[in-house]
């Protein structure tokens, strides 16, 4: 089908203008990935500095206020600058290819939603140079602490507005594309699971990013225009910010993991050479998780002092999330069961995801228990929990997806040897990095502290060593990608033996324009 198109149609415009003005979903997807990679480098270096400071007790490298800036920026950058843009990169590249659409529904808006991000990133990182330094009140931005900062706090709010606008526009685009531009014959329940998870994620983003925008707008107005939304002196309540923030914040957690479920549900069947087990229940489980995410925000606030009835409600609602999540894990295991398994790099990351994400899920279950959470709230146990979910969960799924689709995007197979080294070094060191944090939290180490009591020294040293190895290992990924871009073993249209789906029916690398004639899906 591609072959019949006139040759000129394939050519991409050259030079810088191609990237600045691009409306092509593949180019924009690529831009999203490079943006995420850049921010990952910056956020990662901050993490290295944090781990270096925590290598031993006492203050060595940074002053406490700088440490607080590092943890705050690390959180904001990794969430809004790495995981979310990387998943949007996948959506841009893969959603049109997987549903047989020629491009996104609104290509120009697509360009606009990307280019807001570097501006926001610049504001965020540039604020470190302002007097008083960057924002240091934690990525959760709780007032009244957030009221004490300088101009960089206002700039951060502006950056969050920009990133929110970018996400909302991107999500409207993705949802419209999925709802209206599927190839003939592709019913909703025939869509690849990755597309399903992104459709649900897009709805979550459209529903909660505006709430975050509202919350930070109120902060901005409290800071600058004399309102008292969160100030007890004027009849406001600082705890209300936490309610509004986590009403956004918990769905946000699932925004960061649902596309990961989609990628894993694509990779595992390919390398098991078997269709995904329980497709329908996967879709329902994803939807159930999304709906439940609106009912559990209070579990982030068990220690603010809420009535017992509210604590119990949030505890039970949170425990319910474990049911659909469990269904997903069981389905992945059942997909591998009696398959014909091979372990190329994407599959290695996918299997590690299933194991390690489950550890993050279990620690989530521990934290869901309100009485235990009272003990563990704001400790390193929580840090361990969300890094298992976001690093060995979301980030590992991004790695799996990258290794899986790189052949389609570049036309070259990723170097397996380097890929395996990247996997094994990452998978081992990430556990050395984050597993001891469970013990630190249980033993009583609070999070967000630049210095700690002597009994926490041993595990902190171990975690830091793991962190340095993990950080260094990510250079291997960059090498793999650069090698892949420059050459390597040619990939066929169907790059993997067991791969199913429309994206494998077009050539590798995917031509600049694909599916200008919609394919027929049976």
């Amino acid at each position, binding site marked *: 089908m591609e072959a019949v198109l006139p040759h000129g149609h394939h050519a991409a415009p050259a030079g810088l203008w191609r990237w600045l003005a691009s409306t092509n979903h593949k180019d924009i997807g690529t831009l999203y990935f490079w943006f995420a990679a850049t921010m990952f480098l910056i956020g990662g270096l901050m993490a290295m500095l944090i781990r270096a400071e925590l290598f031993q007790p006492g203050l060595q490298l940074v002053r406490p206020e700088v440490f607080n800036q590092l943890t705050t920026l690390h959180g904001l950058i990794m969430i809004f600058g790495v995981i979310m843009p990387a998943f949007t990169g996948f959506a841009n590249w893969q959603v049109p290819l997987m549903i047989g659409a020629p491009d996104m529904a609104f290509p120009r808006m697509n360009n606009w939603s990307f280019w807001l991000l570097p501006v926001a990133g610049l504001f965020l990182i540039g604020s470190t140079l302002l007097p008083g330094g960057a924002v240091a009140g934690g990525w959760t931005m709780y007032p009244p602490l957030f009221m004490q900062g300088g101009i960089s706090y206002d700039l951060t709010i502006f950056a969050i507005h920009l990133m929110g606008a970018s996400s909302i526009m991107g999500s409207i685009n993705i949802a419209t594309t999925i709802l209206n531009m599927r190839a003939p014959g592709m019913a909703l329940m025939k869509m690849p699971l990755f597309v399903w998870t992104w459709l649900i994620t897009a709805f979550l983003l459209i529903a909660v990013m505006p709430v975050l925008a509202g919350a930070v707008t109120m902060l901005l107005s409290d800071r600058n225009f004399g309102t008292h939304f969160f100030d007890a002196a004027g009849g406001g309540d600082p705890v209300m910010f936490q309610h509004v923030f986590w009403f956004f914040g918990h769905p946000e957690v699932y925004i960061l993991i649902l596309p990961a479920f989609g990628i894993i549900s694509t990779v595992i069947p390919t390398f098991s050479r078997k269709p995904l087990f329980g497709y329908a229940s996967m879709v329902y489980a994803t939807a159930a998780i999304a709906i439940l995410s609106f009912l559990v925000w209070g579990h982030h606030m068990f220690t603010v002092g809420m009535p017992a009835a509210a604590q119990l409600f949030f505890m039970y609602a949170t425990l319910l999330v474990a049911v659909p999540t469990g269904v997903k894990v069981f389905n992945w295991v059942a997909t*591998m069961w009696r398959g014909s398994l091979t372990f190329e790099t994407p599959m290695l990351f996918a299997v590690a995801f299933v194991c390690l994400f489950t550890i993050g899920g279990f620690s989530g279950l521990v934290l869901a228990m309100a009485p235990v959470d009272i003990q563990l709230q704001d400790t390193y146990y929580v840090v361990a929990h969300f890094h298992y979910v976001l690093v060995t969960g979301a980030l590992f799924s991004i790695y799996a997806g990258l290794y899986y689709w790189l052949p389609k995007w570049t036309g070259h197979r990723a170097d397996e040897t380097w890929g395996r080294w990247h996997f094994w070094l990452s998978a081992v060191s990430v556990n050395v990095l984050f597993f001891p944090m469970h013990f630190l939290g249980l033993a009583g180490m609070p999070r967000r502290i630049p*210095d700690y009591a002597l009994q926490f020294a041993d595990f902190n040293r171990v975690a830091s060593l793991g962190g340095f190895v993990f950080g260094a290992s990510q250079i291997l990924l960059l090498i793999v990608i650069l090698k892949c871009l420059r050459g390597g073993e040619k990939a066929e249209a169907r790059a993997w033996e067991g791969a199913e789906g429309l994206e494998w029916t077009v050539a590798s690398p995917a031509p600049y324009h694909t599916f200008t004639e919609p394919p027929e899906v049976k």
Partner: protein
Amino acid sequence: MRLGRQVLWMACWAGWVQPVVADWALNLPAPKSDIAVRIYDIHTLILLICLGIFVVVFGVMFYALFKHRKSVGHQAHPFHEHTSVEVIWTVIPLLILVGMAWPATRAVLDQKDTANPDLTIKVTGYQWKWEYDYLQDGVKFISASSTPADQIANQAAKGPHYLLEVDEPMVVPVGKKVRILLTSHDVIHAWWVPELGVKQDAIPGFIRDTWFRANEIGTYRGQCAELCGRGHAFMPIVVEVKREVDYQAWLAAKQAGKQAKAVAAAAAAGKSFGPAELKARGEKVYAAHCAACHQADGKGLPGVFPALAGSRMVNGPAAAHIDRVLHGKDGSAMTAFQDQLDDADLAAVITWERMAWGNTGSPVQPTDVKVLRK
């Protein structure tokens, strides 16, 4: 509980963990209140259940990973649905969750039950210290970190309770229900003592309560658990649990001390001191109350906390300087110290600031401070 601990050891089989070393603590600290015991047991129960599920599910997965690979010639069986299996693995986790939630529900209700306390203590969080106010007994004091700055800066060996030691601990009687009323003076803090199983946020403008009943005499240490700015790591909590008689003795001494202190302060207020005496006393007061922001070297933090070394106010007329320390500065982090320090301490610390780090201000006497009090 014992079983849970053993399983935990086993769970940490991985090579880098050596549970024989005391500091490599793997679990919650030994609980010293009934609530803390409950938390410990619920945690152990959930951990065991999770471990069981983990072993079963990933046992199955790893079996497949080894036996169902292409390289051993395994053919794929393309099944992709099984309704009854799917129903089973939805319902069973649901039942397990209910089983887990039941003990937790009862613990939540007990944690919230602050009725019938034997003693109520109001705790106020400040950036970055705690104030304890024994409401019925008229005893009130500030409790700040007593870890010396040179230990934090790695210029001295760190003590055994590094960052977990205070100048004046909170003291409570053993076996008595202590109700804690929490509020904050500035930003949100959280009062947390792990061994007593109690953590509660302190919210400015609002009051929250929680409680504990310590089962054993001892010293229990905790920390602020909510990010509250640059000194967040440096506002520890120390609770000394004493026998009832010892507690009463402490209380009496505290009340007597308050009067004696008032008398001494009154005497000191009228007395005048030599500059050396003032500076020696002032340096200590400065380290405890001022160095967190203005830094031990008086250089402050550019853009955040002003420098005192070379400051115009510190080198200028004494009255403005005294006024600032007494009454704070509106709209800044500079608090009013008039209620926290007596005239002699204030005169000493102001003198220290005026004469240290190359400053050339004049010394200040307690009487100078007294006349400027409002």
